[in-house]
């Protein structure tokens, strides 16, 4: 049963990849592009496909998969259908950290480290705040997330004010909207080892993560919930920040994809892990392909994902499928 779903999603991903590879702003027919691709970097078109489009496509797939799976993990461990990196303030935290790094240091690695530190800090503050207040657990987390977002964006504005308006401000502004236009093989290789290791560990831990959803009950059958929770949150923050440091904020994927997967396949966390990875990849790749081809200029990715996200939420909302 699972195999059919995997083949179905895998097939879709492959088709999307081919379409994404063949179409771009360098006007050429699909057949021409295909032959150029086969001939390698001999032609300009071949060069574009091998050195610009292919690493970009692979990066987008990894980013989509990571964003989706991190959203799914947050939703599972907090038992909160509204949880995701965006909602918990992790994304804003990462953004703030990375913006500080853009202004202060000119090294990509620093961007990643700062994004990680600030992202993790934002999640921790959000959790701390949510657990200290009485009331609805689900709402508390969302409201705490909103507070963290507000704080982070306030500081972000201060950073923007102090940034050099001719160089840094533009970089921050454009990077905040998210985009994959400057992905190279080098950047892709930077992220692959970390992403592979962390996703593999999380994949192996999927049954334990699922048990966390039982809440305190899980203690009684021997799960050390606190330790696993902390480990999983740290790994999640590392994954999220590594993506955000390179391609900026890509909103909505973490909330949207897990819900689509849940509604379509109706399987639990344990069985939907790979489906989420693939689904996230497909969704983000489709959005990225649209953003590259829709207009003569490249539309920032978050605009596309936000529009999709809004439409999807409207459908869920009107159909009464959001139950809290």
């Amino acid at each position, binding site marked *: 049963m699972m195999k059919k779903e995997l083949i179905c999603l895998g097939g879709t991903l492959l088709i999307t990849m081919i379409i994404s590879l063949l179409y771009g702003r360098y006007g050429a027919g699909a057949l021409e592009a295909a032959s150029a691709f086969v001939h390698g970097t001999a032609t300009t078109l071949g060069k574009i496909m091998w050195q610009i489009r292919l690493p970009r496509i692979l990066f987008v797939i990894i980013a989509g998969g990571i964003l989706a799976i991190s959203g799914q993990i947050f939703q599972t461990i907090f038992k909160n259908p509204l949880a995701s990196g965006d909602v918990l303030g992790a994304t804003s935290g990462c953004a703030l950290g990375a913006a500080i790094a853009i202004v202060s240091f000119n090294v990509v690695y620093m961007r990643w480290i700062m994004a990680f530190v600030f992202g993790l800090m934002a999640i921790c503050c959000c959790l701390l705040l949510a657990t200290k207040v009485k009331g609805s657990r689900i709402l508390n987390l969302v409201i705490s997330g909103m507070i963290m977002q507000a704080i982070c964006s306030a500081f972000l504005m201060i950073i923007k004010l102090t940034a050099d308006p001719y160089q840094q401000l533009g970089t921050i502004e454009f990077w905040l909207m998210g985009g994959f236009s400057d992905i190279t093989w080098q950047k892709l290789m930077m992220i692959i080892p970390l992403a592979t290791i962390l996703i593999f560990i999380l994949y192996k831990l999927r*049954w334990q993560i699922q048990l966390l959803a*039982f809440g305190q009950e*899980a203690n*009684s*059958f*021997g799960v050390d919930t606190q330790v696993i929770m902390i480990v999983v949150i740290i790994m999640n923050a590392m994954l999220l920040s590594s993506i955000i440091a390179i391609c900026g904020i890509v909103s909505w994927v973490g909330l949207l994809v897990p819900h689509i997967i849940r509604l379509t396949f109706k399987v*639990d966390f344990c069985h939907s892990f790979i489906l989420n990875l693939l689904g996230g990849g497909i969704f983000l790749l489709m959005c990225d392909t649209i953003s590259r081809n829709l207009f003569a200029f490249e539309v920032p990715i978050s605009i596309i994902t936000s529009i999709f996200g809004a439409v999807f939420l409207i459908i869920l909302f009107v159909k009464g499928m959001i139950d809290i």
Partner: protein
Amino acid sequence: MIEISNISTKIHDKMIIEDISFEIEDGQMIMLLGENGCGKTTLIKSLLGHLLLAEGMICADGKDIDQMTWRQKAEIFAYLPQIKNIVDDIKCWEVVISGRNRFMKFFQLPTIEDKAKAIRIMKKFKIEALAEKKISEISGGQLQIVYLCRCFIQEARCVLMDEPCTYLDFYKQHLFLQQAQIMVKEGYSILMSIHDPHLALKYGDKIIFMHQGKIMAKLDKNTGNMKEELKGLYQQIYPEQIIDIGG
């Protein structure tokens, strides 16, 4: 034998239960009676380690369970909560098998043998038809039995149940308690909080009667007439005689 000696628990600096002592012997069904807010749930959560003890000690065969890891504690106590966290889209057999966690390695997933074991246990409690169903699709009574199976598969010494009969209808209450007795017959012990004195008298080997955070009386089936003693207790704490425990 599990010995609970002089435990007290505070929540937000307020003493909820005070100076509670009793023993749980293997193969006994102990009923915890008392009005709402007298500290039954707090007692159960203190035993589980979900709440920190302010004073006192819980020992299993002479070993202090405060020093144990969660995995070791799972060997002593299993838990059937009153309010359950329903995990999205999880199947009933997966809920049952989660009780097996203490036997599994950290990165291990339930195997086919585990699944077979879960279904064998579910067959014992006559709910094997539910195995592949989603936990959110079954009724409250069935949910209770699924959780009972989880406690059973955990093979803990004692199962703590927090008002397991509350949402069940008359027939299901009896069915549930009869199935719980299967566990007791196999040598496990059960401590459950319950409100219905009739059920407590019918199925309990011992009754612990709590009042305002303290134990008011301990009744034993073998050493006295539990019905008469219970009647006396109810008369003491309630001003009028509104309860009639059988003629």
